[in-house]
């Protein structure tokens, strides 16, 4: 599964159980973000134990994008059976902050900073 546009790319690799987001998420609301949320949720459905969300190459995220990732994390939390790891860079302050916020919503979320 993959969504590629001029501004961003979201790619799910089933073998490594990883969804990678790259580029800038600047879409205008829930409707425009729906395909991304759908990709994330289907990846979570296909994985039995673990899933990694790699946000290291995500350059920018607007508040509707924060909302989308939040919805996804709450969905995974509510399923209670999937271990979710989120990757970010420790020298990118907004990524660190985002990961902490996501972890507050889902305390079992594994935050991996590089």
């Amino acid at each position, binding site marked *: 599964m993959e969504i590629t546009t001029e501004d961003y790319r979201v790619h799910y690799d089933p073998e490594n159980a990883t969804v990678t987001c790259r580029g800038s998420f600047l879409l205008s609301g829930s409707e425009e973000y729906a395909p991304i949320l759908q990709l994330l949720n289907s990846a979570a459905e296909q994985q039995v134990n673990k899933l990694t969300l790699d946000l290291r190459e995500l350059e*920018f995220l607007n508040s509707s994008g924060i*909302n989308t990732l*939040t919805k996804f994390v709450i969905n995974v939390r509510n399923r209670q059976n999937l271990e979710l790891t989120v990757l970010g860079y420790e020298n990118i302050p*907004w990524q660190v*902050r985002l990961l902490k*916020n996501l972890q507050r919503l889902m305390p079992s979320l594994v935050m991996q900073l590089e």
Partner: protein
Amino acid sequence: MAESEIHGHFIDGLPREVEYLMIGFSPSSIPLKQRWRTNGLSADFIADYLQTFFVGPREDRANGDVPIPVDSKNAVKYIANELLENAMKFHDDTHHYQTKIMFHLCRDKLVFQVVNTIDQTGKDKFVKFIQTLEHDDPYELYIRQMEANAQNDGSSHSGLGFLSMICDYSANLGWKFELIAKEPPVYAVTTMVSLDV
């Protein structure tokens, strides 16, 4: 003199002798969908422009418990982009009133201002949201709003952008509403976001 109403941290009358940048546009001149792309571009431009004024070594703070530093390009881009997005989403284009984003660099703070017009219903909703912001703990409200948004699929305005400015970027927010037409009522709303530097 227009009737005006002020909420939050609003600085009326910024010093004139400061660096500033202003971008004005008419939201109705091209379709919103096409226009949307310019938000990111304008926000990038403002953020790049500002980088020139931040000199010297920067402390990289990797601790997510502290707010995102003001001198990170992301802080300026995020706030400028959110303000532009809001101005476009909620602008009442029945009036030919220009939407403006102004960015002031003062001695001890960065001040962003966006002016757009809204109708009475928009204003009432907005004021209700501002009052909630003034009475509740913003961080609790932020988390509560995230949970609430996950429950409903509606794309209604949740205020998440403003809450993230306050919680993630330690921004101060203020608003000024000015009545510019009476029948039916139209307001020019100025949203002010300031960051201490």
